[in-house]
């Protein structure tokens, strides 16, 4: 199953988070085993660009749509056999100690299904 793992920075970071794992180790362990397929850090909310179409017009706005205390600082797409494995991977991420991780299971649209590849 695929999960989008949102890496969130939260305002209430613990003062003494304890032994935080190194991100390099996490990336190696997760990507080398094929448990993650794509991921990166994201520019801060100030660099966010909103796009909407209203009454046929493209409306571009500055900044994020939702003003939340948590900021999406990065993401990874996990490919895990089940939720517990995804939780295990998330719990090993350094941001689990100082921020928060949110796992969102994919809800496949199945747009590729049933379409024959031959002409």
């Amino acid at each position, binding site marked *: 199953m695929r999960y989008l793992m949102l890496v969130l920075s939260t305002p209430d970071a613990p003062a003494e988070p304890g032994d935080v794992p190194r991100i390099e180790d996490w990336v190696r362990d997760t990507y080398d085993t094929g448990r993650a397929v794509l991921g990166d850090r994201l520019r801060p909310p100030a660099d966010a660009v909103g796009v909407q179409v209203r009454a046929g017009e493209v409306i571009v706005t500055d900044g994020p749509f939702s003003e939340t205390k948590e900021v999406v600082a990065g993401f990874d797409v996990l490919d895990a056999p089940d*939720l517990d*494995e995804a939780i295990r991977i998330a719990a090993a991420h350094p941001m689990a100690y100082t921020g928060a991780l949110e796992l969102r299971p994919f809800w496949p649209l199945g747009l590729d299904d*049933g379409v024959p590849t031959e002409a």
Partner: protein
Amino acid sequence: MTDVGQAVSAAFRDEWPRVLAAVARSTGDLDLAEDCAQEAFAVALRTWERDGVPDRPGAWLTTTARNRALDRLRRRAVEAQKTATAARLAYRAGGVPGAEAGAAEPDPVGDTAVRTLDHAGWAAVGPEEPDGDLLRLVFTCCHPALPLEGRVALTLRSLTGMTTAQVARAFLVPETTMAQRLTRTKRKIHATGISFRVPPAELLHERVSAVLAVLYVLFTQGYDGWSEPADDAGGTAARRALGDDAVRAARLVARLLPDEPEATGLLALLLLQYSRREARLDLDGVPVVLDEQDRSLWREDEIAEGLAVLDDALANHRPGPYQVQAAIAALHARAATADDTDWAEITALYDVLLDMTRSPVVALNRAVAVGRLRGSEAGLIVLDEVAAAPELATYHLLPAVRADLLLRAGRPEEAAAEYRRALAQVDREGDRKLLRRRLAELSASLPAEL
């Protein structure tokens, strides 16, 4: 009831969770397993009459339920094949793929069926492994990713085979509400990819705590029914019976997790608390606090078992909150009268428990113990330190405990004010009756101008 009817009922009581768990392991689909287990019991009613009760009813039921599941999955797979073929044909004919009816369902049933048929569980179905299956069932139902109410209801239903209507009755909610709660919970199991398995080692410790927490919520729901007046047209009986179910479930989980002293500790705690159930209401339907309970109504056999189970748990020298709470309950159980209670030891145990849990409710109970040990004024000082906790802001037991301490300290006017405050916050009928009575007794003894 006929002999066969009785045999099926007995098998249902004894074997339901094992049958369900075995099929759920094979299919990885709790919903399907539930349906097929139910069908197996229905089939048993018909065929045992004709062929006689099998030597091993549990094995018979498991095989029957499993075969039903396999049949259904094969049918679903065939259906899925047909749908896929139809979609391809429609595409070739120039239609839009997936535009036909039912295609809006993003996880077509066939996909699930094919996946489930491939499920490793079918291959693993060989030697009977009922305990492992039960453990998987419990961990799945109690997964912390599920909403708590759903976990509690699903665990109850899975372990007892109670119908949705029965579960609804026990939790005092309409049947439609409970049906929705169960459906949503099972849907989330599927949607989030919760597997029917024992969690990985890294997560096991927390997951055991999660299971025990669900059992304790279940127990509390039942046990609280014993301090509520039994006048709501039978609902109370259904609710009180949850206490039995919770004790049975705790017994099972303690057996399944022999290396987890907290599981044994929880069983001890439940046994010791539950032993007092008959003493929790007086003849007028007013709750009786522990100090004033008629101790001859406490179940001696259950206390004896609870104490023995607690000793087993403590022998591991790995204490935890449930063991400490059980140890406190044991001290109450051992005291011949309320005055004989070892408040020094109880206070010390509350210190330990508070350290472990940092729970304001524990802190409140500790204030009561300090009040007994070192006097009511000392108890009030401790209570003042607790009172600021936001979790207790609307908790009626905070002013109620303060009122009791004030009364014992010889400050009846202030006590009366606190009882009134508690009455304004209380949301349980039983406690309301008790507070009213306390206030009435107090008012009668106070000078008229108050």
